[in-house]
């Protein structure tokens, strides 16, 4: 018993000293993990960029299961970290629970909306970026059939699919878009084998460009597309380098910029509202670098840039799946 008391005392002392840490910012990643070569990695890169430029440090945590979410938020808030940034739509529910208990801590949630005084919600206009890569897919496709592979079947991913299909149809009215979702549980973000098999299934149906919006599962999609000699489109981070000359482009979701800016602003970050990252403010876009320079023709680039300008100016309106839970050009 005395031994037990000693241990308890020691751990309490540790907890106290941890609580006195500086007001470093903190980032919490979602289940895909910070090296998913996609969404979370983009967030990680933003945090790294901030750390390198300022020479300061930040705290981070990769959750291993859904049950850890609220605990992780509370731990960072109690630790004095400020602001606490979390990447992923699944954080909305636990953050809504916890945010009210820490009025002095500023929270930023990416891809989710929480209505609270001390939370900034950041959403991306995924449909706009997906529209652009959809146009490129339709222009690069010779068969007139293109594919989409999503991760977990949620409205966010359907919005990717819907924007993509709209872009495809804008270029080629008769083009066919085949869409598959990997699954309905969070495991769907981490199943490259299933991603690979879905890609083969789409190839057998004639697809010659596939767009993966599936986190870690996308690694398998891009790999199989490269193996089978068709083009693929990456997502979130710039994934062109994974298979140079075989990835048509990547739909960039500048999660890194959001994390970077949040860390830069620090405790003065504006909360209580919704921030939408669009083509107009550089929140989304497509990736062009030396790895895909040969794949993207001048004609393609001109068409996409024109559409991007038109979307930013409001001349083309891309339907957002979340606005009415339906998509005019495809059914799920």
């Amino acid at each position, binding site marked *: 018993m005395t031994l037990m008391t000693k241990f308890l005392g020691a751990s309490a002392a540790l907890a106290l000293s941890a609580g006195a840490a500086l007001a470093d910012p903190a980032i919490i990643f979602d289940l895909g993990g910070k090296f998913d070569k996609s969404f979370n990695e983009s967030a990680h890169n933003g945090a790294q960029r901030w750390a390198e430029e300022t020479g300061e440090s930040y705290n981070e945590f990769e959750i291993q299961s859904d049950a850890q979410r609220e605990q992780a938020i509370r731990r960072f808030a109690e630790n004095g970290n400020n602001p606490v940034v979390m990447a992923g739509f699944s954080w909305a529910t636990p953050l809504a629970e916890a945010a009210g208990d820490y009025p002095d801590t500023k929270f930023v949630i990416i891809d989710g909306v929480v209505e609270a005084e001390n939370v900034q919600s950041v959403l991306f206009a995924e449909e706009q970026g997906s529209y652009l890569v959809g146009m490129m897919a339709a222009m690069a496709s010779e068969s007139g059939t293109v594919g989409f592979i999503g991760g977990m079947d949620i409205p966010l991913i359907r919005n990717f699919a819907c924007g993509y299909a709209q872009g495809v149809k804008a270029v080629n009215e008769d083009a066919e878009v085949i*869409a598959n979702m990997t699954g309905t549980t969070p495991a769907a973000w981490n199943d490259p*084998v299933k991603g690979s*098999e879905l890609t*083969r299934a789409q190839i057998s149906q004639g697809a010659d460009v596939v767009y993966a919006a599936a986190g*870690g599962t996308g690694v398998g999609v891009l790999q199989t597309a490269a193996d089978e000699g068709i083009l693929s489109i990456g997502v979130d981070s710039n994934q062109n380098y994974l298979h140079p000359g075989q990835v048509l482009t990547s739909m960039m979701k500048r999660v890194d910029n959001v994390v970077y800016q949040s860390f830069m602003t620090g405790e003065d970050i504006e909360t209580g509202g919704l921030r939408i990252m669009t083509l107009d403010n550089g929140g989304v876009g497509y990736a062009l670098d030396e790895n895909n320079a040969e794949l993207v023709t001048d004609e393609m680039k001109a068409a996409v840039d024109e559409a991007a300008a038109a979307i930013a100016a409001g001349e083309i309106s891309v339907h957002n799946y979340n606005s009415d839970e339906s998509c005019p050009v495809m059914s799920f």
Partner: protein
Amino acid sequence: MDFLQFILTLDSTLRLSTVLLLACLAGLFSERSGIVDIGLEGKMLISAFVAAAIAYETGSVWMGLAAGMLASLIFAMIHGVASIIYRGDQIISGVALNFLASGLTVVVGDALYRQGGQTPTLAGSARFSEITLPFADALRDVPILGPIYSELISGHKPLVYVAFLAVPLVWWVLFRTRFGLRLRAVGENPSSVDTAGVSVVGMRFKALLITGLLCGIAGAYLSTSQAAGFGKEMTAGRGYIALAALIFAKWRPLHAMGACLLFGLLEAVSNLYPNIDVFGLFTIPVQFTQTLPYILTVIILGGFIGRAMPPNAIGQPYVKER
């Protein structure tokens, strides 16, 4: 659906069934000897990781396969020591191994490659490539049989053939050899085997040895054949589906192949035709097709189609009478 589409669906079925079949046969040996093996998932996962890492380091996929099998074997032996020698609870030991594999692969992988538990992408000879059987191209234009031979039978990766050739071999070992007879007896009534002067502990360890090797092949197939590298939790529950297939097959090898092919077919169909429209009357949602393996297993377990009788002495540590 035209004929070629049909063939391609079956082709996809073979690829998807392979990993289930290997794991299912692995579980068959273990469970027939009286050891519950819920740790198929963990053994596959550790093997997938070790196979990918060694294949990447050596540049040889065969070295990767061997190392993966060895890793899985070590896990099987830990299970054996815990549940046979120390008579621990077999479920707990298996679950512990699953957790160990899940954590160990990511921690070691991250320490080695700094890619969050992923291994670097495998290329060239560090991956299995497809085997084109003789005359596959020449016969392609023959009606009906041509596509069956050149698309369906030819053009798979080596481990696919290994898995399906293992089925008759397992059947033969289990039902036509002295070893197989003793193995089945150990799972049904270990004391009678003991009375006959055969070591129960020895038999069960031999069964786990085979389980480990087969699980090792299954894991290596995932990371070096289906995918090109390891990703965390890449087994994604396939070990449990294999266990369901084993129950569905009532612990028999040929039925196991049937069950795995059925589960593979359901997955292939759900990949190719997400929502099936039945004559315009109603649609079968993709979720239903994906759940069907589990529903079928529950139906079998509930005794609605025949009876699934597990080996009699399964899950019970053997205590020698003195």
